[in-house]
């Protein structure tokens, strides 16, 4: 259900740019905990940068169109201490991400959990984790 809703939102907000902000905001300012999503796509870029790392993912809609999403995760130090390295995710990797959509209906979301094809689950949550 949630993945269908995310794809629906993706389709609805197709016209808006999904470029992530560089500014550092709280979860509450950017994301809506009433809008959870689960989305599957192909990694185009993993940017392990301060203040928060971003996973860029291309998601294919049922009609074949592709939408580029960007998902904000925890800080690079938090990820590093959990064993992440900057080459942990590479372009072409298939991932499923769970999290919360942005309030402004851009193609961005707060990533809470990463599900890998081999069944591994990785917690990506930021320091503010409503989930």
């Amino acid at each position: 259900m949630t993945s269908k809703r995310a794809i629906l939102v993706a389709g609805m907000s197709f016209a808006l740019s999904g470029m992530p902000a560089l500014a550092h905001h709280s979860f509450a300012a950017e994301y809506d905990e009433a809008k959870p999503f689960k989305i599957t796509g192909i990694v185009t870029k993993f940017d392990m940068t301060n203040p928060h790392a971003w996973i860029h993912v291309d998601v294919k809609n049922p009609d074949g169109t592709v939408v580029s999403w960007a998902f904000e995760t925890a800080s690079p130090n938090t990820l590093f201490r959990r064993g992440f390295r900057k080459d942990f995710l590479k372009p072409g990797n298939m991932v499923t991400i769970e999290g919360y959509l942005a309030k402004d209906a851009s193609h961005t979301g707060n990533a809470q959990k990463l599900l890998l094809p081999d069944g591994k689950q990785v917690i990506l949550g930021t320091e503010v984790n409503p989930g």
Partner: protein
Amino acid sequence: MGTRYLAIAAVLTAGWLLPAVAQNAPYKAPRTSDGKPDLQGIWMARNAAAFDVSEVAEGGVIPYLPEALEREQKGPRVDPIAHCAMPGVPRITYMPFPFQIMQRPGYVVFLYEYLHDHRVVQTTPREHLDGIDFWLGDSVARWEGDTLVLDVTNLRQETWLDSSRHTHSDALHVVERYTRTGPNTITYEATIEDPKTYSRPWKIRLPLHLISEPGFELREQECIEGDDGRAIHPPYRPAPKS
């Protein structure tokens, strides 16, 4: 008689030698409790390096590779610090803001007024971190005689060396040298190496001046980027449409 001549000769020689020795003697920095050169104090560059780093480059030239110049022309044209990004190394050192050096046995701490940045650097050698980059990189320190040497890698490629859009790649490697060359001066040298951008390592050298006014202290210096692109910040994200 011979002894007298020798004594006169010795006095004359000493009188001739002493001023020469004094003139050539390197400045001996005061010591910290663990016997290291004392670099502590509030320091600041007073030159145009933050605006154009070639002002302090050896020979006045940055040895760009042609492909790097081409990349630079196609790259972003807004200074990353306009988005409140940290300035990177070596730029943080010559930003026109004071910074404080504090020392403890085994550590040197750099506190920058600019954006309350800091570097806490261990002087015990270790390997650089693997698999993570930072805006100010990963600094590993050692003492070479009276010089504090910082080896800095893991730098993000987005930073500029100055506000004149002198850029680098993710292969940037900076070796910084801090030497106290007078009671009020640290001579700062940095060797800048980046085989994806420059044809050879190149050097900058500039004095850092001690701020000796009584009571001078670092204060808050913040940068907040607005989402709406107004004020000094260019639009980075479109404002939500209502």
